[in-house]
């Protein structure tokens, strides 16, 4: 039987911000939300894309030679990439020596991904770290995710997934027993606003969180604070009150500071980012928010910002 395959955007080693300890983070491609502020736009689309970073181009001409649809154009000493005619044959990425053209993701099977993960096993053990599977939306690939999680558990590696939970409950049911830490994102408490910001309502997400809070006992909640969109006291109050109904299975709440560093990614994919040039919060403001949400909580859990 062939092993399960998924599109992997990136395997990032020695991460300190995706669960406890040092972790290897596996990013899968494809998401069921499209948040206006998405920091990993290359992970939204389910299909492969070409990342084009024009300032890396040295105009060597190799891509012109292999492209059958004349997608690569040089004008006035500058390299342009016309995606309209592109058939995603990826030949230009194969010949590019400069990393100006790269494919967003790589098809990898569970064994290949696991072999990368296991390289840092000693570090996981020493730091109480492990792996975190995220996305995109890793729960859109329950089969791949499940077999990777199983493999890690067999090897004694701590497992976590990070998910926005906008998926069918049955996808969660299959894997929940193989997860040590369940990291769930909550973007906005109000369903209409949620739809406006992410393209989907949040009832399914809320129900899924209620479901996991009854079946799992180590849940971390993450709230991305996007200035003017999700960082109001009202939203925090709403989310805080919702969390209060979930009980003691919520162990950690993390508020994510906004940052502007992703706009280059949109450019390199020729995608349009509506949210740009917001000002990142100061540490002081983040601490205010942490203090605030603590004052709302009736359950006992760690609250911090990243």
């Amino acid at each position: 039987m062939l092993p399960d395959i998924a599109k992997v955007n990136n395997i990032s080693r020695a991460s300190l911000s995706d669960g406890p300890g040092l972790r290897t983070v596996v990013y899968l491609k494809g998401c069921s939300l499209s948040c206006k502020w998405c920091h990993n736009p290359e992970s939204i689309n389910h299909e492969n894309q070409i990342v084009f970073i024009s300032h890396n181009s040295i105009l060597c001409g190799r891509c012109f030679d292999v492209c059958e649809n004349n997608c690569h154009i040089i004008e006035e000493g500058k390299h342009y990439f016309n995606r309209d005619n592109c058939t995603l044959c990826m030949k230009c990425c194969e010949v590019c020596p400069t990393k100006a053209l790269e494919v967003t993701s790589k098809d990898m099977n569970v064994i290949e991904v696991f072999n990368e993960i296991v390289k840092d096993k000693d570090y996981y053990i020493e730091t109480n770290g492990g792996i975190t599977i995220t996305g995109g939306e890793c729960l859109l690939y329950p089969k791949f995710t499940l077999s990777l999680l199983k493999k890690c558990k067999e090897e004694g590696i701590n497992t976590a997934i990070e998910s926005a939970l906008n998926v069918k409950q049955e996808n969660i049911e299959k894997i929940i027993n193989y997860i040590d830490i369940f990291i769930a994102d909550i973007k906005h408490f109000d369903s209409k606003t949620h739809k406006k910001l992410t393209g989907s309502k949040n009832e399914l997400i809320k129900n899924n969180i209620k479901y996991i809070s009854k079946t799992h006992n180590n849940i971390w909640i993450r709230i991305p604070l996007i200035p003017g969109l999700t960082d109001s006291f009202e939203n925090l109050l709403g989310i805080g009150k919702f969390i209060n109904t979930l009980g003691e299975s919520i162990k950690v709440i993390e508020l994510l500071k906004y940052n502007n560093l992703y706009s280059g990614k949109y450019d390199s994919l020729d995608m349009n980012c509506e949210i740009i040039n917001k000002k990142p919060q100061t540490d002081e403001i983040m601490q205010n928010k942490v203090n605030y949400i603590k004052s709302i909580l009736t359950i006992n859990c760690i609250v911090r910002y990243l």
Partner: protein
Amino acid sequence: MEKVIKYINENLDKNLTLTAISKYAGYSTWHFSTKFKNKMGITFLEYLRNRRMQLACHELIKGRKITDIALEFGYETPSGFDKAFLKEFGCTPTGYKNIELFYNNKYGEMKDMRYKITDRCSIIKERVVDNNVDSQKYMGQKLYNYIKGYYNLPNEKRNNYLLPASSLVAVIKNFKPYISDGELIVGYNYSDGAFPSDLEEYVQMLIQSKNNNKEDWTKYIENSNLKSNEKEELTKMIFDTSDPFLYPYNESKNNIILDDSELSLINEYAARGSCGTHNHSILSYESVLKYGFSGLLDKIKSSRNEKENLSKDELLFYESLEMVCEASCNIGEKYAKLADEMQIEYEGERKEELLAIKKVCERVPKYRARNFMEAIQSLWFAHIINTWEDGINANSLGRLDQILFPYYKKDIDLGILTKEKAFELICLLWLKLYRDYDVQQSTIGGCLKNGLDGVNELSYLMLDATEALDFVRCLSVRFSSNTPKAFMKRALEVVGHVQKGVPFFFCDDVMIESLTLRDIKIKDARDYGVIGCVETCIPGKSNPHAVSGRLNVLKAIEYALNNGKSMINSENNPGVKTGELNSLLTFNALKDAVYKQIKRMVDLVCKLTNSSILVAAKNFPLAYKSLLTEGCIKKGLDFSAGGPIYNYYQIMILGIPNLADSLAAIEKLVFIEKKYTLEELVFQLKNNYPDEAIRLEFINNAPKYGNDFPEVDKLAYEIMEYTCKYIQMIPSVIGEGFHPQPFTFLWMVEHGKLTAATPDGRRSGDILAYSVSPMQGRDFNGITALLNSLSNLPTKLAPGTTSAIVEVDPYLFTDKNLDYFVDLLMVAGKKGLSNIQFNVIDKETLIDARKNPEKHKNLAVRVSGFSQKFILLDENMQEHIINRTKHKIL
């Protein structure tokens, strides 16, 4: 201060002002503010607001009116209260009240107190670091006394042993003592400014001076701080004499015969070699503390008397040691006398201090040290004399926390020393060691001779002093799986706070095994210390001959791809004729050719070193080093001539990472994928990559060392294994052979200049990788991947340490992440990491990254759940990060 804080807390509802509270505390407002901030970590006003807000929350929750609460807590208007509340919580009291609940905030959670640098040390620091005024006082003194020492010796005694000894004695005896304001540890080892301070160089300069640089000497003598009659005398001694006082050194030329090809290897810096006896040592200062120089004098005499039929050399050897030891006995007395003269002019505290200095110097280093203060002073005197004989450069102090601990503990137990005082004395010693250059290294931590962990209170105090002074450049921490994590955490915290790459880290498990593999007894191996940069030795028992030879293995690929010919100078044939390109049909054939080239380089390095070992042994005895190195007195044999228990020669290996990357690129692109032929590659190399796309392909489309890629890490392993093993096989004419040391110092620049373009995409003349660190900017797979690559090397074959620098973003190196760094090091140590230094990247690096992105590919800016490479950011964002980083520096 406790009293003041209690007072503040009892009067939170009153109108507390800074003036009032300072008055209560009995200080000026300025003095109080500083003291408060130092003690509490926040200002008085911040503290006051914190406390008031905390209480106000309790009142709010009880349902009291906001206006009442504001008044009660000393805010005259509700709006003032609102403002303060807003600053604290980010919302107004009304807003807060409407959100129903309150929380318990923990204010004032502060870090453990650390000792702060004392006023005395601050003043001395300014003097030492900022203008180095004290060193000016010594200009010319050493040179004058040194040359006079030659002339003091009657003609019949002018031989290789007694001439240098007599000079050293003259320096010890006649060097003018000086005690500067506030000092408690006295004595200086400043060198003579622009002139070389080590013996051999001195002599070379003197020989040359007769002919070449008379003007320089005249100018130097004029500017020196000597009396006018001394200046005249010195000029006369150098220029107006026909006295053949340099006689023995005229014969010290190396008579080795080299052929053209060997000369080419040397000229292209592929192989260099000499005997690195000078200014790299750790002597047994411990024996000076234990026995005093008077006790050591007895040892010389009894050893000599035990021996029968002494040879002429042995007689002279013992005589030179006695001369030096006798003079060393009396170095303290001069300072005791000066302190006594000075104390008359002082009253109060300084008078007491000078009297204490007098008492200490009357005793040490002549007699054994009895307490901590005497031990530090004695050790410092012992070090000064070492640097007078042999220059300062990398003469190092050894395991200071171990040497000094018995004295420290005794004094603490007796109640005659406080931790605070000990901290100040360590700071004062660190201040003595400060220089703009030179690497007088100290080692702390590590295991005891019995294998148990040796970290003690002094180890911590030495870290504290390093952080507080914020300028120490040379401190090494030894660690193993037995080292307390708290100590490692503190050491790493200092790295993060100081951000100058100190301390360095050495893994005991690897180092000790690598030394025992070279027949060093386990108890001695466990006592290893660090010299200078990262060289290792057995303190007080070895002559490690650090920096003896060096070879650049990257040149091997250049020669192998060109049938032994050089690519930077087509007339040179430095290599072995390993065959034309058409004979290198497989990757293994190419590897064999490379190893043949390496073998020849090693042969030459060892040949050069061996020939100069004999020259040094015959012509450059070092009496003081022999006195303080076990084995010499017993054998009746000088430090330079094989007297120490252990004698070995360290050979530096450059270019391992580049050679591994080069071979991996050839294997993939030429032999596996067959995208290029060797001929096509060599054309690119000889012409320094005329096709940039091909160069980038060799960089980007082949695996690079440092990323935990087995296919290339395996090659790095093989290259290092082959080179180290071969170096270890060759015998040395004196001692136990050669110790491989994959370390580049700063020479990766010079050696790079003479290396043609290489298949790893490196251009001709570009810098090589530092030691075994990956080539700059080519490790992009995270710190665990890098540590795995480093630990996978055969580090146990390199008893001279395998050095690596890891650059870390200051954003990562924060206090909250320290536990992870501790774990990272502990794990990597277990896996085989030998030495590591952290470089917390600063703003300049980022600016350079913007200009030269390909050199800094691994520089990532990490934010929660998402990280982006610096070079992928747009210009504005780069600017932003550059500016932001400034604030990140702790």
